[in-house]
């Protein structure tokens, strides 16, 4: 069965390591914070200028001057630091964030990602996404494997305008965990009960399937 949003977040959370500074995008990536494994501590970077983002405030703690990149009211953990947007993106662009998790419309076998613009539809802007994908060495993209109409989002070449070129190495979909290298997708794991055949069928770009494909367990 396809992974739920929570399961996707849970699977991504297993990639966290103790001491990681992590930037989580909006949507499923945000949920990853709820599944940090025991014994592991991570610090969340919010690109509006906060390192060490905490939980939402209580009603009493709400402070208009304390928000995250999603413009939500948040708190800061003990030991957090707060800085300007230029300093925040110096951190991001300079490759100092250990892991970035973000959503996408499409990725392709070249590691390209499209996530910000659909021609003909209203374009709201890329926000910090282009900086995040260009700056990070270690990115996990989370998205559904195919659109509601069954069209694959894992392509040989993105059809939408790119957010970044050649920067994505790992994708977690609701069906599979996939690595991108040497111009191909490589199937690493499959969702519980999802067949390799279904994954291959729903992957438009070239995909390499090893002899044994482990099933994720939750």
């Amino acid at each position, binding site marked *: 069965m396809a992974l739920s949003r929570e399961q996707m977040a849970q699977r991504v959370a297993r990639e966290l390591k103790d001491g990681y500074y992590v930037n989580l995008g909006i949507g499923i990536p945000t949920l990853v914070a709820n599944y940090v494994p025991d014994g592991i501590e991570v610090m969340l970077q919010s690109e*509006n200028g906060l390192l060490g983002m905490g939980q939402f*405030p209580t009603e009493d703690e709400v402070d208009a001057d304390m928000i995250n990149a999603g413009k939500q009211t948040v708190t800061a953990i003990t030991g957090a630091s707060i800085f300007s947007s230029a300093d925040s993106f110096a951190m991001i662009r300079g490759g100092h964030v250990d892991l970035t998790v973000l959503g996408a419309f499409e990725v392709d076998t070249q590691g390209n990602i499209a996530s910000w613009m659909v021609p003909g539809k209203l374009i709201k*802007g890329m926000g910090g996404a282009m900086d995040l994908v260009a700056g990070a060495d270690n990115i996990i993209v989370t998205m559904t494997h195919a659109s509601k109409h069954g069209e694959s989002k894992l392509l040989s070449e993105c059809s939408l305008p790119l957010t970044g*070129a050649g920067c994505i190495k790992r994708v977690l979909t609701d069906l599979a965990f996939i690595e991108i290298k040497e111009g191909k997708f490589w199937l690493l794991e499959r969702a519980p009960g999802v067949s390799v055949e279904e994954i291959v069928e729903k992957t438009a770009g070239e995909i390499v399937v090893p002899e044994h494909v482990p099933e994720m367990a939750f």
Partner: protein
Amino acid sequence: MSGFDKVVDSYEEALAGLDNNMTVLAGGFGLCGIPEGCIAQIKRMGVRGLTVVSNNCGVDGFGLGVLLEDKQISKMVSSYVGENALFEKQMMEGELEVELTPQGTLAEKLRAGGAGIPAFYTATGFGTPIGEGKESRQFDGRDYILEESITGDFAIVKGWKADRYGNVIYRHTAQNFNPMVATAGKITVVEVEEIVEPGELDPSQIQTPGIYVNRVVLGNFEKRIEQRTVRQADA
């Protein structure tokens, strides 16, 4: 040190000289840390044809959004502008030009503008529509695009506290784009919640030194919250 006393008594004085077709740089991220009083004054002044550089354009009826009501803005340079029906309408109808710029590139362009750096290379946007028409080159085997700096006729900034010399500190994440914007305006106006005497701010903790600031004005802030997210208090 009268020559260094930057405090003015009104927003009229604070924005004196702002005229049609000028470029205005505005601090803030979403509705957080925005120069509310300067925006209101620009609306009152009725100047038009403005190019506004700001990460966002407020919401309908608040923040920079109010400058759309009388079509005072002709061009926005922003990274994300989607929170505003009037904005959409004017953009769709071609009344409002929009130059989308990645958030980190925007922050760096403003810093560069203040720092006398006319242009810099960044990997952000290479191979995307943002890189089209821009010069690109490789360093160490990686592709980068050339981005030029931004300066403005006026910079409008929201600080927390300023002293009379224009030294400013910011509060929490209301810092955001404000320090860079403060460096990049020909005339920089800072509105603050509190004006203190010189010496009250620790010299090493001043985030915008007074050299960048032309005018300081005491403001009143609504501080509207865009996404009020809360958790239950622990029992």
